[in-house]
């Protein structure tokens, strides 16, 4: 029986879709069967980042409303036979995907996959509740900004209410030079405020943007720093004790983080 993990953040644009695509692909790279589910109805992106947009025939709302069977809507990845995407609807009403329908879909997916990765929409309204309702675990994505951390904190409180007890934290778009100069919240501060296990830190990396435009998740390019970060995150989800990468020339910059690395 697979595990359903929701990728959420509260604040928009912090990297939920990027993280879903890269963690999903990295897990597939390590031989796991993965289905990514895009629940951002009306603003679907995951298909674009994965380069699968042109293969969509049906979407998750079609499945929820019985217009299509789950197998008809699931898209097989270009690169991996055991990586699938269930795309969001682009034009239909947001409320068309209910908590019940989401439960049913995820219940059907879990026995077929090792991981069901749910890409959550921004905000804490209906779409958030639907995405979170069917999850066993959560990954909270934030960036080193006050507003993003504040929203992450709010979301963690709501996840506790939904009986998702100990979400894992991904801090995205870290720039070591800015952290060092004090212009960015440092990782210790963020982990201190949110008091969560850290699953990984991802550097701000232009490869991410290039890759997204080419429909190739960054994680497939072994030379980018973000790629290494996402691979490490996937390995931690699988239970490997991978230390945090040293983003800085200055040795030991993240050494004090050791004890706080959270393992899936």
């Amino acid at each position, binding site marked *: 029986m697979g595990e359903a993990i929701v990728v959420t953040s509260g604040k928009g644009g912090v990297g939920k879709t990027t993280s879903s695509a890269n963690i999903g692909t990295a897990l597939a790279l390590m031989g796991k069967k993965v289905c990514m589910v895009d629940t951002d109805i009306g603003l679907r992106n995951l298909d674009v980042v994965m380069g699968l947009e042109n293969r969509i025939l049906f979407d998750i709302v079609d499945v929820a409303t019985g217009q299509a069977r789950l197998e008809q809507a699931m898209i097989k990845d270009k690169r991996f036979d055991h990586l699938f995407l269930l795309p969001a609807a682009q034009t239909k009403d947001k409320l068309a995907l209910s908590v019940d329908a989401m439960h049913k879909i995820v219940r059907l997916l879990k026995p077929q996959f090792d991981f069901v990765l749910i890409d959550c929409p921004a905000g804490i309204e209906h779409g958030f509740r639907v995405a979170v309702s069917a999850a066993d675990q959560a990954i909270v994505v934030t960036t080193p900004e006050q507003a993003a951390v*504040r929203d992450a*904190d*709010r979301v963690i*409180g709501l996840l506790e209410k939904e009986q998702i007890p100990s979400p894992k934290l991904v801090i995205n778009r870290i720039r070591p030079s800015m952290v060092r100069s004090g212009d960015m919240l440092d990782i210790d501060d963020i982990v201190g*405020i949110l*008091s969560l296990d850290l699953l990984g830190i991802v550097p701000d990396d232009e490869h991410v943007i290039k890759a997204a435009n080419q429909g190739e998740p960054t994680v497939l390019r072994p030379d980018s720093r973000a790629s290494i970060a996402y691979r490490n995150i996937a390995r931690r989800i699988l239970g490997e004790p991978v230390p945090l990468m040293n983003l800085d020339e200055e040795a030991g910059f993240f050494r004090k983080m050791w004890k706080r690395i959270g393992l899936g």
Partner: protein
Amino acid sequence: MGKVARLARERSAPGQLVTIRGIRNGLLFVLAEDATIAELIDELERLLQGSEREGVGETAGVTAYVDPGARRLTDDECDLLRGILTGKGNLVVKGFAGPPAALEESVKQPYIYKGTVRSGQVIEHDGDVVVVGDVNAGGRVIAAGDVVVMGHLRGFAQAGAAGDAAAVVAAVYFEPLQVSIGDVTRRAPERPSRGAEMEFAYLEGADMAVERMAMLGQHRARSAARRARHSPGER
């Protein structure tokens, strides 16, 4: 305290000789200042009639406080009033000097919350609140008594929410966005917390001050002395 609230609602109206108010610790009987003692006794008898008929009526065992307003009650008058309240209402009369000071009468158990109070979460309690963890920005703790945070206070804390100006807000890392005590609200002091040394906020008249935790004992003694000077004292 449902029955008390009901009694207070049903049997009091503005302009009455005796107004009954439900307070945290029981019932407060507010006596009109321009009424004679005889009128007040009549009115109390009328108000408490129902309670007597019902035997162990709805007020039985409830604590009563009498607020005489500006008038001075003689010992005899106090005895008369006490006789009616205990005789007709089965009330336990605690004092003739108005509502009790919230701090002294705080009988509620403190509420101990273990965990992080996150943005959007509210912890509210009719007594002292102890948070074993952090209160993050956007989180709120509201207490009728004191608020004590055994971690970072980054959010909003309200102590003495029922009006107790002697309540305090304390935290190991005192970095709140806002603090309220009684009806006074202040923005955070614009200085970094000293950290690792617990601090508390308290009211000095209408001003709010922050002091090292070690000073809490002295603060308590000072405000107790001040209260004793200003209140007429129970009889």
